[in-house]
């Protein structure tokens, strides 16, 4: 049982937190701009590299330099929206999806050009785990990621329900035409969607990069799981996306646990297929997800 918590549940929550933060942006962009943002994973990568670079210049704890990564990701997101997505806004959204596919490739090649294609670690060496109550061995990083994600989740909830901008975003997500009729500045809402989505993606990228290492395909490899998390939570439901991310993270890790006898449910090499199968099951049986999101 202790092993289960230490070796499966906590890592599951950790990767789940990464998925959660990425999925929020995807769900919001889906809800407000109405398209699947295929470049979101690579936005995470850019954010992660931003912090990595900052650490080279200011050698303190990477998490303290998170704002640098967020700033880089935000600038990148606003730039691609302005030059690549906005010109296609009046067309059927599939064209924007294709464009985002291209943006993903652009981000990835830029990452490979500026930071090289190999792995780069934030902090070399093995980190000793934190031991709680003499039984739980949790890596300090995992604890930090989970706690920070919870804080972000709570902040996000208050933002969406209490603040003017948050409500405006939910309004535009619900009914964009009515929002225009009510006089809301929809372009401003779009801008802030990118800002928030990119900032959270950067955080996710840093967390993922610190857990393993930074490499150009970091975000793209996680994209499928984040899409699945967004669908699981319900499209256009940011809080649902957080729940979805955590569930998928835990599912992925616990499916390799030796539940029956000595065999895991699924061979660890197929861990990333779990998210895909969850998504397929959702699309077949409950496309509106857990929290009744939009069906597009």
């Amino acid at each position: 049982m202790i092993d289960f918590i230490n070796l499966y549940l906590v890592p599951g929550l950790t990767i789940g937190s990464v998925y959660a933060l990425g999925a929020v942006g995807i769900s919001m962009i889906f809800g407000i701009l109405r398209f699947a943002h295929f470049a979101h994973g690579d936005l995470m990568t850019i954010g992660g590299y931003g912090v990595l670079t900052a650490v080279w210049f200011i050698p303190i704890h990477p998490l303290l330099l998170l704002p640098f990564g967020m700033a880089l990701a935000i600038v990148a997101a606003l730039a691609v929206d302005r030059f690549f997505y906005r010109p296609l806004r009046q067309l059927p959204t599939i064209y924007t999806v294709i464009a985002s596919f291209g943006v993903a490739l652009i981000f990835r090649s830029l990452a490979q050009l500026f930071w090289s294609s190999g792995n780069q670690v934030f902090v070399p060496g093995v980190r000793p785990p934190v031991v709680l109550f003499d039984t739980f061995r949790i890596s300090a990083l995992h604890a930090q990621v989970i706690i920070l994600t919870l804080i972000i989740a709570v902040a996000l909830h208050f933002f969406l329900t209490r603040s003017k901008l948050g409500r405006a975003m939910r309004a535009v997500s619900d009914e964009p035409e009515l929002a225009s009729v009510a006089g809301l500045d929809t372009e401003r809402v779009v801008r802030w969607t990118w800002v928030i989505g990119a900032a959270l993606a950067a955080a996710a990228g840093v967390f993922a990069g610190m857990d393993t290492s930074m490499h150009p395909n970091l975000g793209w490899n996680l994209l499928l799981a984040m899409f699945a998390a967004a669908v699981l939570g319900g499209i256009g439901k940011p809080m649902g996306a957080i729940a979805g991310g955590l569930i998928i993270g835990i599912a992925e890790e616990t499916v390799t646990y030796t539940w029956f006898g000595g065999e895991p449910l699924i061979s660890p090499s197929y861990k990333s297929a779990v998210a895909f199968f969850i998504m397929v099951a959702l699309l077949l049986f409950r496309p509106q997800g857990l929290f009744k999101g939009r069906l597009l």
Partner: protein
Amino acid sequence: MSALLSVAGLTAGYGGVPIIEDVNLDVAEHEIAVIIGPNGAGKSTLLKTVFALTSRSSGAVTFSGRDISGLRTAQLVPLGISMVPQSRNVFPTLTVDENLDVGTYAAPPGDKDAVRESVLSLFPDLRDKLAQPAGELSGGQRQMVAMGRALMSEPKLLLLDEPTAGLSPAYLEIIFDLLLNIRKRGVTILMVEQNAKQALRIADTGHVLVGGKNFVSGTGETLLADDSVRRSFLGGASA
């Protein structure tokens, strides 16, 4: 007394085909003006063009003496115009209270709480539903939320697109009474209505639109008594 809203020679449509052509219309302050006509006459398009939701090809729209023809919708709300669309007129996942709140974003009132109180006094049924998502309400209640949202910006002119569409006969009476109350508070009303007879009964001025063009205009009573109008749109028998 010059008109609050003045529409002159307005032509508009989608993709090159005009739906309304050379339409003229004046709405006096504090009056209830109604636009009626057969299906496809362009009534909704007229309203949408006034509110810049559809682009006009030619003509002008003046509000309080100011030319608003080139302005965008978001700029019209702070000027004092609000609209209640026919369908999809509430934010379904937002609560009733949040729906009303959104109505203040484009034109923030001085005392938001006072405005809210004033609007809720018009729709007392909504008071105990403030925390409910608007999408869960009945058709009639949703219509009230939609109207409430539009009134939160304290408009001088309220545009309504078929406010009684899809509502039960009981709600018809309620809505028309509400409109009279709203007018009593100093709001000018311009609405499109399919229930022509009842609309004309509360209207100060009626405008009949046929085939995208002006057909006839007059006071509510005159139009109700007019033979040609009666036969075509009011079902024959006298009101």
